[in-house]
């Protein structure tokens, strides 16, 4: 009997425990830039952070579990310096910790983690949407690139959820696209297309990075050029000594 009471109590307290964990993590890692009340830090001199550089981060009130989940699972956050560009890396926090933080920030209002269904979408529709909204920065098959003042990540490592979140959140300097622009059904197709670009149709052979003429030129010089120079050297004579 007692074991059941203990279990029930644990279950009841778990969310609270998680929320506590989330709050603890927040105050240990995020408060320096995002403020004690998640209101953000505007002035550079207001707080000093454990890392280098001045503090200063946007408010997290109302950003929702969606944004928190995106930034934490991609490793964008925590960021060493507020002026640095967030880059994808191994998440700093473990999965349960991420869940706790996401719960904590989500409790302060905002959209939840989205559920996206790429299997319901079509690659063809996704291609059209991607071309119009995304290819300019992310390149036609998601190999990434640059914009003035920032690099644009490749999309190979992105999960379906992260893609959907990025589209709705617009992290760093990426624009955001709401449901009037890209409907949930269209988002399914868009995600399906991005996942397709992880393994696109490469029937021509070695895809050399799917970046077009840049790696092609390198192959022309460093493979064909060197091979043909070697061939010429074998066939012809050197200077007689």
């Amino acid at each position: 009997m007692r074991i059941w009471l203990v279990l029930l109590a644990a279950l009841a307290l778990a969310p609270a425990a998680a929320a506590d964990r989330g709050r603890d993590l927040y105050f240990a890692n995020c408060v320096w830039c995002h403020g004690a009340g998640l209101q953000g830090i505007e002035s550079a001199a207001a707080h000093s952070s454990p890392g280098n550089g001045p503090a200063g981060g946007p408010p997290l009130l109302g950003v929702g579990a969606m944004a928190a989940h995106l930034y934490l699972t991609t490793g964008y956050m925590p960021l060493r310096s507020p002026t640095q560009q967030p880059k994808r890396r191994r998440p700093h926090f473990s999965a349960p910790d991420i869940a706790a933080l996401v719960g904590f920030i989500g409790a302060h209002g905002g959209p939840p983690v989205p559920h996206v269904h790429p299997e319901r979408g079509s690659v063809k529709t996704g291609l059209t949407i991607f071309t119009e909204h995304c290819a300019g920065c992310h390149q036609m098959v998601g190999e990434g690139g640059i914009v003035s003042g920032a690099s644009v990540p490749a999309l190979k490592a992105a999960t379906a959820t992260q893609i959907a979140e990025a589209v709705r959140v617009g992290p760093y300097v990426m624009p955001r696209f709401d449901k009037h622009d890209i409907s949930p059904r269209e988002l399914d197709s868009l995600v399906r297309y991005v996942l397709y670009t992880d393994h696109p149709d490469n029937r021509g052979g070695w895809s050399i990075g799917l970046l077009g003429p840049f790696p092609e030129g390198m192959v022309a010089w460093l493979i064909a050029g060197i091979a043909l120079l070697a061939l010429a050297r074998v066939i012809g004579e050197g200077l007689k000594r």
Partner: protein
Amino acid sequence: MKWLWSLLALLLGRGRRGAPAHVERQRLIPEQPPSPRGENIVLALLALAALCFAAFVAVYVLDRLPDHTQLLGLALGLGFAFAAAACIVVSRLLVPVEEISEPYANEPNVAQVEEVEQLVGESGSRLTRKRLLKVAALGTGGAMGAAIIAPIASLGPAIDPDALRRDGWRRGMRLVDSKGRPLSADHIESKSFYTAFPQDVSHDELWAPLVVVRVDAERLDLPHGRDPRLWAPEGIVAYSKICTHAGCAIALYRAPLNEATSARPALVCPCHYSTFDPATGAQVLFGPAGRPLPQLPLLIDERRELRAGGHFSNDVGPSWWGVRRGRA
């Protein structure tokens, strides 16, 4: 019968070198030892090459094979590689090694040059007014050339470049998205960008594509003479999507989530990274563009849909001699 046996013996015997039996001729190519090893290598390489070419035909026929293109290329490429190797071995081991010499032709043929000059000169000896005839011939030639070249002008409206100033936007024309759905002012979010076109117009007109964004009211600083009520109603601005540098589509929008720590919002072109500020009439912030993007005035009608408020502020597309640059 003896004839037949002799013929067979001649054809099938191992290659005998040396002069033909009936004439004693001096050798033109120095005698050199044979290389049976070389011959064997060449035969082997030729056999391998033939095998690869046969494989190519087989792979070609079996077109359901996976990686078909790779197998075709491998077979053909290796076939040629073996053939090349065979040729190289022939050149190294089987061909008589020779070095021959010849004089370079270093002197001009002075006598003939003079003769040519003399021939041309003397052929004109019956002419009394050479200069006049030459001028007449040149003139006629020029006129003939002009006549032959003239039809090139049919290629395009080159004489009057007014076509370059084409701008089909009129006040009241509705803005639609790429699927033809009208753009609503209520759905133009900040930190997003929208591609728009005139309703019922081909997307292949250079003046047609627009990029529409919403700018924060405090940042708005349009050029002199553009009333924000007409050029940025509720902060919504529209610019030509065609870059004024080299004609690519402005397909990038830098939309910082936290402006304090990153660059300001900007429209960016993917070709040479010309960067335009939508808050200031698309002034050039960075990159090789020489003039701002043309801006389209906007109206929000009673259904909250976006419509054009008039013509572009200046000419669309890359610059040329007579491009109307508008006021900076």
